[in-house]
C-alpha cells in the first residue's frame, strides 16, 4: 500500500540525514519526501510517502517515533488528507499548434504555463501524484525535455 507519513521533527542540522538513513538501514524505501519549516521555527515538518504492507508501514512509524528528534509521527489516512505535489515540466514544441494544445492540457489540470519559448514551454502543476502522473502521460507525445517534482506535502483535514 501507498502510505503518507507526516513527521514533525526538531529543526536542527542533520535530522533529514537521520530520518532518511533510518529508511535505508531498516530496508524501507522512500517514494517521495518534502521538508519545510513549520509556523514554529523550532520544528520542521517532513512528509514522506512510501510503499509497504500494513506491518511494514506500522514498523516504519514505530521506528520513526522512537527517534529522539521526532516529535510526532502520523500515518495519514489518504482519504481524510489533502496532499499535493508541485511539479515542473519542460515540454518540447515541435509544431505551431503544440503551444495551444499544451496550454489546454495545463488548464485542464489546473496548471500554469511559464517560460514560453519557440522550442519549449514550461508547465507548473500542483496536484496529487496520480494527477501529475496522468498529466505526464498526456504530455509525453509532445516530448518531455525535463521534469522536477517536489514530493508530497500533506495535511489532515479538520475534524478527520
Amino acid at each position, binding site marked *: 500500500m501507498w502510505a503518507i507519513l507526516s513527521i514533525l*521533527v*526538531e529543526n536542527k542540522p*542533520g535530522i533529514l*540525514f*537521520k530520518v532518511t*538513513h533510518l529508511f535505508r*538501514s531498516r530496508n524501507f524505501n522512500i517514494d517521495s519526501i518534502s521538508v519545510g519549516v513549520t509556523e514554529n521555527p523550532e520544528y520542521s515538518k517532513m512528509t514522506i510517502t512510501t510503499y509497504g504492507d500494513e*506491518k511494514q508501514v*506500522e*514498523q516504519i512509524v*514505530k*521506528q520513526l*517515533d*522512537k*527517534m*529522539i*528528534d*521526532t*516529535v*510526532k509521527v502520523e500515518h495519514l489516512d489518504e482519504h481524510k488528507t489533502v496532499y499535493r505535489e508541485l511539479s515542473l515540466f519542460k515540454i518540447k514544441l515541435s509544431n505551431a499548434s503544440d503551444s495551444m494544445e499544451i496550454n489546454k492540457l495545463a488548464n485542464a489540470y489546473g496548471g500554469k504555463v511559464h517560460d514560453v519559448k519557440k522550442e519549449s514551454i514550461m508547465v507548473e502543476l500542483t496536484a496529487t501524484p496520480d494527477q501529475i502522473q496522468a498529466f505526464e502521460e498526456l504530455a509525453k507525445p509532445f516530448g518531455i525535455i525535463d521534469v522536477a517534482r517536489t514530493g508530497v506535502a500533506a495535511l489532515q483535514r479538520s475534524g478527520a
Partner: protein
Amino acid sequence: MNKMESMTGAKALMTAMEKEGVKQVFGLPGGANLPMYDEFSRCDIRHILVRHEQSAAHMADGFGRVSRKPGVCFATSGPGATNILTGIATAQADSAPMVAVTGQVPVAMIGRDAFQESDIIGMANPVVKYAFQPRSAAEVPETVKKGFFIAESGRPGPVLIDIPKDVQTNEAEMVFHDEFKIKGYHPWTDPDIVNVERAIDMLLHSEKPIILAGGGTIISSAFAELQAIAEALMLPVVTTFKGKGAFPENHPLSLGPIGMHGHAEANKMMAEADCVLAIGTRFSDRSVGTFEAFEKRLKIIHMDVDPAEIGKNQTTQVAVVGDVRASLRIMVKLLLQKQIKKTEDNTWIKHVKETKSYWKENLKLHPGEMGAAKLLRKLRELLPKESIVTTEVGQHQMWASLFYDVIQPGTFFSSTGLGTMGWGFPAAIGAKVARPDVPVVDIAGDGSFSMTENSLATAVLEDIPVIVFLLNNSSLGMVAQWQRTFYDRRMNGVEQNHCPDYVKLAESYGAQGIRAQSMDELDKAIKTALSSDVATVIDIPIDPEEDVLPFVAPGTSLSDMILPS
C-alpha cells in the same frame, strides 16, 4: 536552577559528570581531547588508561551492564573516535548504557579535512541512541545531563558527545540545570493492565506454555518477578543467549538458552510449545531460527520497553509495552489477587522435566579429560555464585552458554547482538571496576582474547584483578567449526599455531600466567587466581577439533538441531 559560574567547557564537562555520579572513565588521550584530560588533575574522577580506544568502550560497556549506570569512555578525534565505534555499536546492539566522549577539531576547522578530523557524528549516528556535538562551551552542562538521561533511561544505549577543542577551552557562564525537556523522547510507557490480563488468560488456556526471557529481563532486574510467575503458573523457562541467567539455571523449571547453540532440551521444548511469554527480547534470528517457522506455530505474548520491538520480527497476539519489571509486577499482583496457582501435576510440565533429564544424561560430550563441558563445569564448581562472568565471542562463548550455569541472576554478560570478538576481557575489567567485591572472570578463546589482550596492561597497572579463563584451541574455533561443517573441511585463515605463549604474554605484562593441562592443574589454577590480587590468565590447551553441539544451522528452525553423534 543552580547558580551561574564561569568556567571552560572542559571543566564544565567534568563538573557535569561528577553531578551524574561518574567516579571513573576509561580512555586514551590525544591532541583534540587534551583540555579535557588536563581537568582530570583537578577533579575526583579516576582516569583508567587503555591501550586501544575500542577497549575503552568495552570497559565502559562492561561497567554499564553491571552497574546499570552509563559507563564513560574517552577518545580523541579522528582515529581515536573511529576506534571506539566498534565498542559503541556493540553497546547499541545489546542495549548497554554508555556515554562516549570524543574530542573534535575546533569548530572553525570542522569540514575542512583538518588533521585527525573525522565526521564521527555522521559515522556514529546509525549505532548510537543519540549523538551530541555542542558548538559552544555554554551548551556542555545541558548536553551532559541529557546525554546521561538518554543513555540510561527506557531501553538503554550508547550516547556520543563529540566536543570540539575550542568548545573545551572557551569559557562561559555555566548553568547546571536539574530539569530539562526532550520533546520527542518518551522512554517509559505504563503497562496496560488489560493486556496483562489477556496475557494471563492466554497462558492459562494454553496446553504447552513457556517463558522466553531475553536480555531486557536482566536490564530491568526483573528476576524475582520472573521466578514468581514461572513458579505460580508452573511455566518452564528458556532464555535467549542475552537473557542467560535471567532465571537461575539450577532451578527445576530452567531449561537454559535456546537458539543456534542452545540447550537441546530448551530448543526441543520451545519447538513443542504452543504459547510463549516473551520478555524483553527482540527475537533475534540466532535465538528463534527462521522467523516464519517460529511465529507460525505459536501464540506470542510480547513484553518489551521498546514499542518498536513489537511486531518487528514476530507477529504477536498480545503486546505489553513498558518496563518489563513493571509489567511482570502487575502480572504477579493479578495472579495473587485471583489466587491463580498451578501445580506440577500436569502433562506438559512432566514432559518438560522428563525431556530435560533425558538430555542432561544423554547429551554426548567430548570424551577427553579437557573437554569444554568438563572445564566449564569445573569453573562453575569453584566460582562463588555471585561471581560475574563475561565472555569473548566464539566457540568458548557457546560452550559457556551450554555448560556454565548461572545461579545468581544477572551475573553473566556477553556480546550477543554484534558478536564482537575482543569484548569480554575489557568488559570484564569494566565489570570489576563496577563490582570490585566479587570475582570477575572472562571466559575466552585465543582468537578473541588476542584482539584486546593488550588490556592486560590496564588490568595490571590500574590494579584491576580479573581472571581470563582461556580455552585455547590455537585457532579461530567457531570459524574452523563452520569450515569443517559447511565447507568440506577447507580450512582457511583459522590456524593460530600456538602463538603467542599466553603464560609468557601475561607475565610480560606483569600479570600472572598459569597453564592448566589437566583437571588437577585447572583446579589449582582457578583457586590460585581467585586468591590472587593480580590479573591472571589461565591458559587451557584444548582439542582444536572439538565442536560446539547441539547446533541449529543458520536459516533453519529450532527443531532442526544438529546433535553430537
